[in-house]
């Protein structure tokens, strides 16, 4: 067919509706030219069929005249165009077809957009509304209608004042009028929608200006999302947060959270104080190394690492710390690993109680007890020696007089005899003997005069060497080699030197008595730090020493025959002796232990592991600068 506009159409001729039904219309043509002159019923059926298809195919009716067209009035809207055959001018047909196709496609497009929009409006869970300049609803979506239209036949024409209490309606109305006035949008406003019965909802609302095609302001449109549950959850969370914060802030303990690298993430006021800092900002992100000495920080960090690696918390650990300013601090600390949602350890949470005051009181008490014990010992000693002393003093007096006669006599002789040499020698021997007798009397008086226990810091190495030196003769006589392995790091120990000397004299004498055929006596000193109070530490040690205490260890080892089980058990009992009667009283080790205990130390006697023989182990607390320290 030749077209007036020069276009070219391919024409297909379909005779019956049934035939038409067998085709997919869009795939076979762009337009259908329906000849209405066949008969009304048939034409109507065909128009309806094509209309139902809602496809992008233009439908053009070809009528004889206006009169004939009028007979299809009820379905005329389904037509895209019509052509009156009697008036058809040349070239008009193709132009009309072209326009009909264009119109049809446009309509189709509009329909698609409308459907999309409607589908959006109908399916979003948010309430969407359109309002006129007086804030009357002109259109609402299904959600809006369902939620707010419950008590109204239709929302159209209603205002917020019909749905809500004045409180909200007024605010919303003002917002909308403001938008209309300024054209500015209101984005994501949190609104409390109060209903007339008093209940309320939290919504998040966005409202924008609504303009017509010409850009004239015709009202507003908006979308509201119900966030009541979210808001409730947020409020609950906020409340919990406030509660937690209040608890943490006002707890009568230091609370802190650290990450895997030991940096503080959370810290409360008290803990800030414990660290010697001023504000939270001084602590967050910092580590122990910013507040304590290197050694101390190392020690605590190590413990923290163990907690995080082993995934095992600790409870009520007493922690003695020294702040940078030199002040001391005792904390009773519990720590647990901190885990994330997937149960991975991401740090630790700790709570610390300041027990410094208790500790200081404990110290005072200890010092008092120590004084008391020393006094007690002095009393016992005094009591024991009072009788002996009285006796000794009397005897000494009686002996001193005649002795003085002899000594003066000998002195006289000594100054007058010049020869012979033998006689002179006799006199000198006598003088020597008198001196010895004198010394005995001094010793007797010395022994019986009451001793004051005087505790002063002293180096145990020096004392050990001194006593070894005093007894060198005894060792030589017994053919015993002495080996001194004394550590240079040995710290001073608070002790009563004469008493402690007695300890070593007793230990050495004991060693000599078990090495009659010679042997080696080894004396060793070393420093030890009390690290834990676990099961591998004896209860006696736990009682005497605290974690972090520095302990001086002295070992006296012999190469004798060692100990039987009974000896190991009874060695420290008074009057228990393995020596033959007359060789010893059996008081030696018992006295030794008393003296060690008086020094708050510990003494054990065991067989050696490396070789036959016994090992005496002495543990003494290293003296701290603080004289009343434990």
């Amino acid at each position, binding site marked *: 067919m030749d077209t007036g506009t020069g276009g070219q159409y391919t024409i297909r001729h379909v005779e019956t509706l049934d035939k038409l039904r067998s085709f997919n219309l869009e795939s076979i043509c762009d337009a259908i030219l329906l000849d209405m002159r066949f008969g009304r019923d048939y034409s109507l059926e065909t128009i309806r069929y094509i209309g139902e298809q809602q496809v992008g195919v233009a439908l053009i009716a070809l009528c004889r005249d206006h009169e004939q067209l009028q007979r299809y009035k009820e379905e005329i809207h389904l037509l895209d165009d019509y052509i009156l055959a009697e008036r058809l001018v040349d070239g008009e047909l193709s132009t009309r077809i072209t326009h009909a196709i264009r119109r049809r496609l446009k309509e189709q497009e509009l329909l698609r957009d409308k459907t999309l929009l409607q589908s959006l409006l109908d399916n979003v869970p948010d309430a969407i509304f359109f309002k006129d300049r007086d804030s009357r609803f002109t259109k609402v979506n299904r959600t809006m209608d369902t939620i707010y239209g419950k008590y109204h036949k239709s929302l159209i024409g209603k205002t917020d004042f019909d749905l809500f209490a004045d409180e909200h309606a007024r605010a919303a109305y003002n917002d909308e009028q403001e938008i209309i006035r300024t054209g500015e949008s209101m984005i994501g406003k949190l609104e409390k929608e109060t209903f007339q019965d008093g209940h309320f909802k939290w919504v998040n609302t966005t409202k924008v200006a609504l303009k017509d095609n010409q850009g004239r302001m015709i009202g507003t449109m908006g979308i509201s999302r119900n966030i009541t549950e979210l808001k409730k959850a947020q409020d609950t969370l906020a409340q919990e947060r406030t509660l937690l914060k209040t608890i943490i802030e006002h707890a009568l303990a230091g609370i802190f959270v650290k990450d895997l690298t030991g940096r503080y993430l959370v810290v409360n006021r008290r803990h800030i104080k414990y660290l010697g800092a001023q504000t939270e900002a001084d602590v967050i992100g910092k580590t122990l190394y910013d507040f304590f000495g290197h050694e101390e920080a190392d020690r605590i960090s190590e413990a923290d690492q163990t907690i995080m690696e082993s995934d095992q918390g600790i409870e009520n650990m007493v922690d003695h710390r020294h702040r940078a300013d030199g002040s001391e601090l005792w904390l009773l600390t519990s720590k647990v690993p901190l885990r994330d949602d997937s149960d991975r350890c991401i740090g630790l949470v700790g709570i610390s109680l300041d027990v410094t005051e208790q500790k200081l009181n404990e110290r005072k008490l200890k010092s008092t007890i120590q004084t008391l014990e020393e006094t007690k010992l002095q009393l016992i000693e005094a009591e024991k020696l009072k009788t002996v002393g009285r006796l000794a*003093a009397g005897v000494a007096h009686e002996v*001193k*007089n005649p*002795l*003085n006669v002899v000594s*003066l*006599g000998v*002195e006289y002789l000594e100054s007058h005899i010049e020869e012979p040499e033998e006689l002179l020698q006799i006199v000198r021997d006598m003088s020597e003997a008198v001196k010895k007798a004198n010394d005995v009397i*001094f010793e007797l008086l010395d022994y019986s*005069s009451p001793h004051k226990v005087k505790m002063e810091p002293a180096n145990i190495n020096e004392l050990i060497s001194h006593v070894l030196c005093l007894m060198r003769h005894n060792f030589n006589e017994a053919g015993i080699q002495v080996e001194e392995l004394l550590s240079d790091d040995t710290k001073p120990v608070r002790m009563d030197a004469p008493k402690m000397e007695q300890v070593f004299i007793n230990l050495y004498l004991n060693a000599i008595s078990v090495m009659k055929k010679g042997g080696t006596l080894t004396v060793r000193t070393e420093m030890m730090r009390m690290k834990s109070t676990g099961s591998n530490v004896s209860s006696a040690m736990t009682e005497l020493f605290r974690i972090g205490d520095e302990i001086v260890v002295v070992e006296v080892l012999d190469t004798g025959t060692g100990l039987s089980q009974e000896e190991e058990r009874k060695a420290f009992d008074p009057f228990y002796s393995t020596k033959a009667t007359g060789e010893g009283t059996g008081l030696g080790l018992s006295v030794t232990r008393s003296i060690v205990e008086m020094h708050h130390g510990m003494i054990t006697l065991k067989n050696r592991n490396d070789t036959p023989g016994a090992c005496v182990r002495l543990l003494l607390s290293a003296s701290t600068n603080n004289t009343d320290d434990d």
Partner: protein
Amino acid sequence: MIKFHKSSPHKDAKRVLVIDDEPTFTRMVKLNLEGTSNYIVETLNESRRAVEVAKEFTPDIILLDVVMPEMDGGDVALNLRNRSATKDIPIIFVSAMVSLQESKKGFYQSGGEHFLAKPVDKETLCGAIETVLSTSQ
């Protein structure tokens, strides 16, 4: 045979009276002191006669035992100091009844009095006498 040469005292030798109930002790003190030629020594074993002997001997100094059976050193000293003739003679008490510390010192002062602890040797004895005499003159 041993020979003892008896030395005679210097012309300015000091006169010492030794009072002790033990004759052997006083004898030994006398022997030792006179052996130096610096002293003329009189001994007395009956403390009761102290004032009488002191008046007669007029010593420069008296060595006085404390524990004696008849009259103890304290009373003797009191008697001596109550008599004008003897009141200015300095006294050194010699005693075995002293504490350990005191005996270690040998010669010492206590309560304003001079003491010598037994047993005493010649050197300490002479030293004490010289010290007291030099301060009392």
